[in-house]
């Protein structure tokens, strides 16, 4: 326990103290505005998550922003065909930092059953993905789990910045960023070369 922590413990009980980084992380994780990248049938489940039965507003992520400039989290829901790949990449680039990506469903995560030259074999060839959801399509609960996982990631990163353990254990570290354009043909296509 550091001196600061000891000082804080002796503070007035009605006084709520925090660190700036924790406060920002708290704000971020409870207002994750999604950019709905609905490309196929997974988008229907994504809509169900916003609807009253599952109601993602309980997690502060109900404000679907169709402008990437106002979004924090991109939900790639569906088959990313090569023709759509440049648009997905561009929309991701337009989102302001910090930003997170959920690859929802088999197609967005790995290409799923579309082992075809026309389909990107996983959206992580284009953009860095934080959370993958298996399923075809995944249930709305699985998408809620993914949003909660991103909330844990944000919290863990803020805590890791000051050398503290995460409050809730995060399974694994963040995966490696997207492969270089030289490795991924889709990313090369996205770059417009």
């Amino acid at each position, binding site marked *: 326990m550091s001196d600061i922590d000891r000082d804080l413990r002796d503070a007035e009980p009605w006084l709520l103290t925090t660190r700036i980084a924790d406060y920002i992380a708290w704000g971020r994780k409870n207002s994750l505005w999604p950019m709905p990248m609905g490309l196929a049938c997974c988008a229907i489940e994504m809509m169900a998550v916003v609807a009253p039965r599952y109601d993602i507003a309980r997690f502060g992520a109900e404000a679907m922003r169709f402008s990437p400039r106002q979004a924090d989290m991109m939900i790639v829901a569906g088959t990313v065909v090569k023709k759509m790949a440049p648009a997905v990449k561009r929309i991701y680039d337009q989102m302001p930092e910090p930003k997170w990506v959920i690859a929802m469903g088999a197609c967005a995560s790995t290409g799923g059953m579309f*082992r075809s030259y026309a389909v990107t074999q996983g959206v992580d060839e284009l953009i860095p993905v934080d959370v993958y959801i298996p399923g075809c399509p995944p*249930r709305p609960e699985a998408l809620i789990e993914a949003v909660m996982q991103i909330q844990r990631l944000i919290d863990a990163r803020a805590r890791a910045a000051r050398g503290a353990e995460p409050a809730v254990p995060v399974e694994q570290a963040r995966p490696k960023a997207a492969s270089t354009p030289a490795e991924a043909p889709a990313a090369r296509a996205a770059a417009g070369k």
Partner: protein
Amino acid sequence: MPLTGKPVKRPVPKGFWAGSYLPSVLKGMWITLRHMFRPKVTMQYPEEKWTMPERYRGLPALVRDEQERVKCVACFLCQYVCPPKAIHIEAQQIGTGIEKGPKVFDINMLRCIMCGYCEEVCPEEAIFLTKEYQTVGMSRDGLIYHKDRLLEMGGIRPDSTHKWGPLEKPRAAGQVAATAPTAVGGTR
């Protein structure tokens, strides 16, 4: 070109009271008020969960028999039938040297579309779809489930299909359908 069809007139509220739009506002608020007293439909997900139907198709898993033997005989039928080619099997000799079993049994859960073809095609009834539906992962590698993980998910599933040892009774038509819906272990 002459205009065809007849455009609808824009409805304009008549009179001072209707023109103030207050009746419309009150009408809307009345609907909102009524909805406040209707039953709540939101499922509080992490605390509250659906009860899945008996035959819900979630992530696939391998099962063991009553004597905790791996039922899979590495016949490669599921790997062959799998539409997204999510299953990867490598066989090995086991026991007497004649029998075959899986050395490697990987299922890429991110490829899997939970169609249930593997369960349907399996001659040994060794692979089943669980009711697991809320899995998320942080990496692609983490969602390739290996044999140990799959066997752990599947657990023990007693039934009349035995590769090693006699069946309790000969398999009659319809018996498969009778045994199939029993719960698979490792489900929530």
